[in-house]
């Protein structure tokens, strides 16, 4: 049997780590990643632009004004006007609201639903697991856009319906992830101990397993927000978005694509830049959060 001799530096480092809480460690790891901080700032700016912008920059986004259609950028309209004669900059602000709302709502709903599903499948195991996961497999093998097209050809989409539809495809991989993690967590000693002194199953799942899943699940949820924004844009491109006067970045981008050969560049690029920036920022943020979670796991 050999004893590992620790150098004083390592011991000092360990003491320092122990002194700091896991939370401050997480915050520090995050702040060290400058790119992630920049992305968080970018998202805050985009949110301000969409939600506070319309309060400062008043435009008519409800009725069409065909006298002003497709005007190039000018002092009166910094980003020109769209095919309905509405101010493009104002459209982007209003469109940002529904885009961000869909992204966020899908991220939250898909995470909650996937968490519950995966938790039950992983914790109960056996036949429950088999049935629940076969359902997930079945849904995962459906090319979802075909279903979206199908659905939207029969009913007029509302923002909530779109949120539900995107959630219906987004929770699947979360459920898989949570199930896998639960399978390993349920064999831990503290779970066995809780079972030993008679905790109920809901309590074990809620109080003992879920808190240890949160990190992974939050990272996953962040990436779901990025995917949801992209899916929402694709749905709008297929003409299945929320009908006007409601708008979103995907819809604005689609109008730009349809007028591509007319040379109305101001209808195309600003919306594209906003979507790419938002999705990039959310993805980078998700990756940074993953680093934070992994660092926390090292010290668990």
């Amino acid at each position, binding site marked *: 049997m050999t004893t590992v001799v620790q150098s004083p530096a390592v011991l000092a480092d360990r003491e320092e780590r122990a002194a700091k809480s896991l939370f401050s460690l997480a915050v520090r790891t995050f702040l060290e990643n400058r790119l992630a901080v920049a992305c968080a700032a970018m998202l805050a700016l985009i949110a301000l632009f969409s939600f506070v912008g319309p309060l400062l920059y008043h435009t008519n986004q409800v009725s069409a004004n065909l006298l002003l259609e497709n005007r190039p950028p000018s002092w009166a309209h910094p980003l020109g006007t769209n095919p309905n004669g509405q101010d493009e900059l104002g459209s982007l602000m209003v469109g940002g609201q529904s885009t961000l709302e869909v992204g966020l709502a899908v991220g939250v709903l898909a995470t909650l639903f996937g968490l519950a599903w995966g938790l039950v499948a992983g914790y109960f195991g056996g036949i429950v697991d088999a049935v629940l996961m*076969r*359902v997930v*497999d*079945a*849904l*995962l*093998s*459906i*090319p*979802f*856009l*075909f*279903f979206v*097209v*199908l*659905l*939207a*050809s*029969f*009913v007029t989409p509302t923002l909530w319906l779109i949120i539900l539809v995107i959630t219906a495809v987004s929770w699947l991989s979360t459920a898989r992830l949570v199930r896998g993690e639960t399978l390993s967590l349920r064999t831990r000693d503290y779970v066995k101990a809780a079972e030993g002194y008679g905790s109920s199953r809901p309590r074990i799942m809620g109080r003992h397993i879920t808190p240890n899943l949160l990190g992974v699940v939050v990272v996953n949820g962040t990436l779901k927000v*990025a995917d949801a924004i*992209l899916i929402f*844009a*694709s749905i709008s*491109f*297929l003409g299945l978005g929320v009908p006007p006067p409601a708008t979103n970045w*995907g819809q604005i*981008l*689609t109008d730009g*694509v349809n007028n*591509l050969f007319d040379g109305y560049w101001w209808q*195309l690029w600003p919306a*594209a830049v906003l*979507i*790419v920036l938002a*999705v*990039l920022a959310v*993805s*980078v943020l998700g990756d940074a959060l993953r680093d934070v979670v992994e660092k926390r796991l090292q010290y668990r």
Partner: protein
Amino acid sequence: MSSFVLRRLGQAVVIAWIVSMLVFLMLHALPGGLVRAQLGSKPSSYAVHQLARQEGLLRPVPVQYALWVWNALHGNLGFSYKLNQTVGSLLAEFVPRTLLLVGSSLCIAVAIAIPMGLWQGRRRNRVDDHVLTTMMMVFYSMPSFFLGVVLIVLLSIWLPLVPSTASNFGSGFGVDLADLILPVLTLCLGGVSYFSRYMRSATIDNLLEDYVRTAYAKGASPRRVLLRHVLRNSVMSTVTLIGLSLPYVLSGALIVEALFNYPGVGLLFWNAAQDRDYPVLLGVVLVVTVATIVGNLLADIAYAVLDPRIRYE
């Protein structure tokens, strides 16, 4: 091995059965449907009743489902009144073109992504890795239709090399090679950005493994370690990803076909949705889903061939 294949085959059949039920129930739950689509918005109640009886819609739903499955198993997927053709013949015409589009994009994407991810993993955190990672993240952050538009602007407007929309609606494989370039490129770039990320992290993980150190200790050259040892172990995860990515690629094909007017099954479906061409919608969803399930099955079997540990789980 054969028991593994049999078990996976059983699972695939169960999944296909669940999907077919979902598709059928969903179409029945939706308002409007077949009768409205064929008779217009204000049919007489007599005509509605006639048609419903003729199409078997008055029978109990489970019986309708059973009949539909029975017919589908015999290759009879119904008749499109809008296009005046059987769904089977429509699929026979449109599916091969989508297979061509999706198959060639996937092959090219994997052929680029594997060496690229391997290279990035080896050159981790160097300048070239950062440049490639950033580029791939930007591609990944674009809605696929916008990526297509960027390619149109670059290759069809600025440098007029290829047509921006497919012009040719011939039968069978009747697609000009030039018409294929932009759709394939669009799907392909999306695929590369997806696969290369996983290939890169698999390479990084594998480079830290003990067997790599052993190989170096035995005196293998870095080139041999990378190409002989790391490559084979890193490719595995990409193989399963191909199977799992099929629904996304097919969804991508729907968008790309709509954007470039490429006459594949996505465009057929898209037009059928606008006409509420019920039998075509049902047939396409079924065929596309079964294709995905078969693709997943093949990927799993390929995975088991590559990695014997999987079979004994």
